[in-house]
C-alpha cells in the first residue's frame, strides 16, 4: 500500500515509474538525492556536522514503482514517525524543503512550508482507502532495481517453499482452488490451463508471459514490470514448476523501454542469486527465462500471434484448436499467461487458494488492477476486489469528471470492449457482468468519457485503431473493418441513412462471427455497444441521399 506504518527513521520514496517520469520524476529524484546528500539549502554546515555526528540521521531517498495516483505525478511519499505523507507535482525546487521537513530540521512546520503548499495529497481519500493491494503489494514499496529489497519484502519465499514442500500437482490444486481467471482479457480459468499443459504427453514445455499490453489507456502490466518485476518472475517460476517447463519467455512490447530495462536487470539479479537457472534454490528444478521484445504490433497480444513473433515470424494469428497449451512454441505444449495473472500466483500460494477465492465475486475471484484515465479527476492505478461497482471505481475512487460535470460513459476492454453508459454504473466489475452489457473486462483499462465526446466518434476511434492493427490475414477483418470505418465516417458526419445503419449492423455481425482471431471478432464491439446504449447519437437521416 502507499501508506506505511509510522517509522522512526524517515525515508522518502520517489516514484520512478514511466507515468511520473513523463511528469518530471527524474529531475525531482535527483534534486531530492542531492538535497539529502548535501544538506538543507542554506545550512550546509549544520547538516554536515549533523551527519558526521549522528550517522543514523541520514535520510534515505529511494526510487520505487508506481504510487497509484499517476495523474498528479511526480509523486513522493515521506514515511516518518507520523506515518506516510504523500506529495504530488512537486517541482525540483521544492526538494530541499521536503528533505528539511523529513529530517526534522525545518525552521517552520510542514503546514506553513510555502514550497510544499498545495502539493500535499490526502491518503485517506477513497482512491487510496478502497484499494486492496495483492498483485501490487510490493509496487511503490520496493526498489524494483534491487532484488534484496524484493526478497526482504517476501519475494521468492513462495518459490523456495514450493520447490521444497509441494509437488507440481499440489501447486496446481491451490491455483485451481483460488478460482483465478486469466487477467489478459479472456478470463479463462488459470488452474484449468495449467492442468491442460501439465497433462500433455511427456516432452518439452514452455511458459510464456504475455506482457504485450496493447490496449491504449491500459498500464497495469507496465506498473508491475516497472514496479515489482521480481514478483512476476517468481510467479512465472512457480508456473513453470507446476507445468513442468524449463524454458520460458517474457514477451514485452517495445514501447515499454523502462519495463524492459528493469525486467532484464531483474532476470540477471535472480540468476545471480540462484533463483533462476540450473538447480534453483538448491532443488533439481531448472528454468531459463528470456525477454523477447515486440516491434509495434497490437495483434501480437493475441496468443498464437505472440508465439509466431517469439519464433521470429510475422505476428499473424492462426486458427485454434490446437491451443497453445497443446501445441505452442515449436509445437510443444506452452503455457501463456498475462503479467497480472502470474503476479497473483505468489500471494495465492502464500495465503492459500481458498483465502484468495474468498475475495471478489462469485464467478470472478480475487482482485483486479484497473488503470483509470480519460475525463476523470484521479488518473492512476487501482486494485480492488472483483465485483466492486463501476460507480465506486469511477466516481468514488476516481473522483468523477475533473470539471465537475457528469460522467457520460466508461469504456472498458479497449478496442475489444464497449462503452457502459452512466446509468449502468452500478454494475459490478466482473467478467460476466461486463459481457452482459456488450463490453468486456479486457485487460483492465478504464477510460472515462465526458459529456463533450460524441459516441459515434468513440466508435470510429476504435475502428481506426483496428484497421491500423489488423494483421491482414483474413478477409472479414482486413477488408471488413475498412468498410466499417467508412460507414462510421458517415455516422460521425451525420450523413448516415437508415440503410447505412442497417449495413453497419449487418457487417458488424459478419465481422464478429467470421473473423479468424479475437481482434477481428471483437473489433465491432465498440460500435455495437454504442449503438445499443447511445443509438440516438447515430441519428439516421431519413431518406438522405447516398
Amino acid at each position, binding site marked *: 500500500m502507499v501508506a506505511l506504518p509510522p517509522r522512526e527513521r524517515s525515508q522518502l520514496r520517489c516514484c520512478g515509474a514511466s507515468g511520473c517520469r513523463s511528469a518530471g520524476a527524474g529531475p525531482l529524484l535527483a534534486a531530492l538525492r542531492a538535497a539529502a546528500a548535501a544538506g538543507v539549502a542554506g545550512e550546509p554546515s549544520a547538516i554536515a556536522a549533523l551527519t558526521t555526528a549522528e550517522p543514523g540521521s541520514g535520510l534515505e531517498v529511494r526510487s520505487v514503482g508506481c504510487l497509484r495516483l499517476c495523474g498528479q505525478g511526480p509523486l513522493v511519499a515521506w514515511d516518518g514517525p507520523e506515518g506516510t505523507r504523500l506529495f504530488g507535482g512537486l517541482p525540483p525546487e521544492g526538494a530541499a524543503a521536503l528533505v528539511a521537513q523529513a529530517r526534522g530540521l525545518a525552521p517552520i512546520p510542514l503546514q506553513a512550508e510555502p514550497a510544499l503548499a498545495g502539493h500535499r495529497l490526502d491518503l485517506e481519500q477513497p482512491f487510496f482507502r478502497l484499494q486492496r493491494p495483492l498483485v501490487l503489494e510490493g509496487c511503490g514499496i520496493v526498489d524494483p532495481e534491487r532484488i534484496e529489497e524484493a526478497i526482504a519484502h517476501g519475494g521468492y519465499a513462495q518459490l523456495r517453499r514450493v520447490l521444497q514442500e509441494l509437488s507440481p500437482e499440489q501447486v496446481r490444486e491451490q491455483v485451481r482452488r483460488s478460482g483465478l481467471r486469466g487477467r489478459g482479457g479472456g478470463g479463462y480459468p488459470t488452474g484449468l490451463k495449467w492442468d491442460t499443459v501439465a497433462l500433455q504427453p511427456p516432452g518439452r514445455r514452455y511458459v510464456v508471459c504475455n506482457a504485450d499490453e496493447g490496449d491504449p489507456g491500459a*498500464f497495469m502490466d507496465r506498473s508491475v514490470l516497472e514496479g515489482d518485476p521480481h514478483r512476476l518472475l517468481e510467479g512465472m517460476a512457480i508456473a513453470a514448476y507446476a507445468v513442468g517447463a524449463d524454458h520460458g519467455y517474457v514477451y514485452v512490447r517495445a514501447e515499454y523501454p523502462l519495463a524492459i530495462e528493469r525486467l532484464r536487470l531483474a532476470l540477471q539479479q535472480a540468476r545471480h542469486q540462484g533463483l533462476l537457472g540450473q538447480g534453483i534454490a538448491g532443488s533439481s528444478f531448472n528454468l531459463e527465462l528470456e525477454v523477447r521484445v515486440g516491434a509495434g504490433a497490437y495483434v501480437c497480444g493475441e496468443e498464437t500471434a505472440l508465439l509466431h513473433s517469439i519464433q*521470429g515470424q510475422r505476428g499473424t494469428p492462426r486458427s485454434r484448436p490446437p491451443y497453445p497449451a497443446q501445441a505452442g512454441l515449436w509445437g510443444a505444449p506452452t503455457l501463456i499467461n498475462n503479467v497480472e495473472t502470474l503476479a497473483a500466483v505468489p500471494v495465492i500460494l502464500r495465503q492459500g487458494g481458498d483465502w484468495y477465492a474468498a475475495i471478489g465475486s462469485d464467478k470472478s475471484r480475487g482482485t483486479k488492477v484497473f488503470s483509470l484515465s480519460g475525463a476523470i479527476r484521479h488518473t492512476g492505478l487501482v486494485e480492488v476486489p472483483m465485483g466492486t461497482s463501476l460507480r465506486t471505481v469511477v466516481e468514488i475512487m476516481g473522483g468523477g469528471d475533473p470539471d465537475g460535470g457528469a460522467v457520460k460513459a466508461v469504456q472498458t476492454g479497449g478496442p475489444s470492449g464497449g462503452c457502459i453508459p452512466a446509468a449502468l454504473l452500478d454494475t459490478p466489475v466482473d467478467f460476466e457482468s461486463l459481457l452482459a452489457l456488450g463490453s468486456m473486462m479486457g485487460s483492465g483499462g478504464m477510460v472515462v468519457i465526458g459529456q463533450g465526446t460524441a459516441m459515434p466518434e468513440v466508435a470510429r476511434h476504435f475502428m*481506426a485503431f483496428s484497421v491500423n492493427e489488423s494483421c491482414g490475414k483474413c478477409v472479414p477483418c482486413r477488408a471488413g473493418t475498412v468498410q466499417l470505418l467508412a460507414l462510421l*465516417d458517415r455516422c460521425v458526419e451525420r450523413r448516415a441513412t437508415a440503410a447505412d445503419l442497417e449495413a453497419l449492423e449487418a457487417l458488424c455481425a459478419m465481422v464478429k462471427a467470421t473473423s479468424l482471431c479475437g481482434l477481428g471478432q471483437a473489433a465491432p464491439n465498440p460500435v455495437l455497444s454504442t449503438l445499443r446504449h447511445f443509438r440516438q447519437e447515430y441519428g439516421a437521416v431519413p431518406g438522405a441521399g447516398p
Partner: protein
Amino acid sequence: MIRRHGGQSHGLIEVLHQVQELDGFLSKPALLQVARGLRLPLSRVYGVASFYHLFRLQPPAEHRCAVCLGTACFVRGAGRLAVGLRRRLGLDLDQTSGDGRWALERVSCLGACGQAPVLVLDGVLFTAPPADQPQELDSWLTALGLPAAVALPAAVGLPAAVGTP
C-alpha cells in the same frame, strides 16, 4: 551480431532491432545480410520487417513528431491535436515529407495518460496542450518550433480519420 543470436532464425526480430539501432533503419543491403546470416528466404525477412510498425524501411526523417492517439489522449482532444499537426506539417499520419525533413507518426499510448494528450517531438515528450482552445493550441504548437500551417495537397485532405476536426 547474427552470431551472437546463435544464427538461429527465431532471433530474426531481435537482430532486426539491433540493425535498426545501429543504422537508423533497415536498408535492403542490411536485410540481405541478415537473411544470409540467418539462412532465411529473402521474402520472409522482408515480410517480417514490413509487418511491425517500429521497423523502418526508409531512412528516418530529420525531425520526428509522434502524436499519441491512445484512448485517454483521444478523450482529451488528441484528435484536434493531430489535425493541427497534419495542417502544419502538410502530412498525413504515418507519412514522411518528400524532402525527408519531417515525419508524422501515430502511437497508441505513451504511458503518460495522466498528462493527456501528449506528443513526442524528436524524442522529447510534451504534455497537456490546450487542445480545446484552437488559438492557444496554435501558439502552443508554434512554441514547439513546428512550421506554420501549409496548404494541404489534395491527397492529404482532412477526412478526420482520427477524431474531432
